[in-house]
């Protein structure tokens, strides 16, 4: 069971991957997205970390993002961010 995750910046498609879970720093609180999450849209906090769990129980990969926006729909999770720092 994998979640289709895309991270897009204005300059390029930063990441397109199948992952287990992503914890997204929403404006109104962090939320974890697994496969089959109900559709939602949220703006993101600036300079907060996006945590990507490649597999269940793995150490998360952290990416700092700014100016972000997350969208969950049937096809997966898309994060639009103005800046991304590894």
């Amino acid at each position, binding site marked *: 069971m994998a979640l289709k995750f895309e991270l897009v910046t*204005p*300059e390029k498609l930063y990441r397109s991957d199948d992952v287990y879970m992503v914890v997204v720093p929403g404006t109104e609180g962090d939320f974890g997205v697994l496969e089959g999450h109900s559709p939602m849209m949220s*703006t993101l906090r600036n300079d907060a970390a996006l945590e990507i769990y490649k597999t269940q129980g793995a150490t998360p990969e952290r990416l700092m993002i700014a100016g972000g926006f997350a969208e969950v729909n*049937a096809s997966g999770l898309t994060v639009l961010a*103005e800046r991304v720092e590894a």
Partner: protein
Amino acid sequence: MASLKALKMRINSVKSTQKITKAMKMVAAAKLRRATEAAEASRPYAERLEAVVSSIASKVSVGPQSPKLLAGSGKNDVHLFVVATSDKGLAGAFNTNIVRLARRQAEALKAEGKTVKFYTIGKKGRDQLSRTFRGDIIHSIEPGDLGKLTFADVQNWGEDLTARFEADEFDVAHLFFSKFDNVLTQTPTQIQLMPVAVTADEGDVVGLSATVEYEPDEEEILAELLPRNVAVQLLRANRENAASEQGSKMTAMDNATRNAGDMINKLTIQYNRTRQAAITTELIEIIAGAEAL
């Protein structure tokens, strides 16, 4: 008839011009590849954002409290033309085509009694527009090398434009740039930048038919995304321009190289004829001299 020496010099000078245009063509070809890659890389973001913005915008009812970037100022009197060109010439009709479209639209609007103001990006656009619309240019930007523009640069222009829009400096903003179709074709294009043109079709572009949760609510998301959309459109226009400029330059320099080649051929024939004529004259003189003895 020109002397042999003058012709020789002329041929050499055309030859070195040809070398330069050939080198410029090669440079443009290399830059073109990078520019088209950049233009393609910036497409997914722009497409996603546009889809999200128009799908939310079609859900939000437009009222006096909705963001100005969506609702507009309610008037249609003052138009701002954001004309994106480049700083450098020698790219065929690239800059001229964009300016010509903008000028035609401006004259049409003026004939209807509207006011048109200009916001130019690129030295060439400013220079050409200031011939006819000197007083109407409210701001000009010199972007430098279009291929090296980052999102941060464009964001500043977007903020400036949004601030001017909020301050009621204009009612509608249009963006002019050259769309890159392929190396041979670049189409000058006009799009509406502000207020956001919401596509009327309720087409379910992002699969939003199911009940979607919004955090915070739709209006707040929209208020944050709309200014960003302006910057993204500007970035897209400049990326397309960067590719178009290099494509246009490549074609122009290819033509120049070919013309130089034709000219060299013509001059060489003339040179040889002159040389032959000189030899013939000399021979006639010698023969005439020998016969006289």
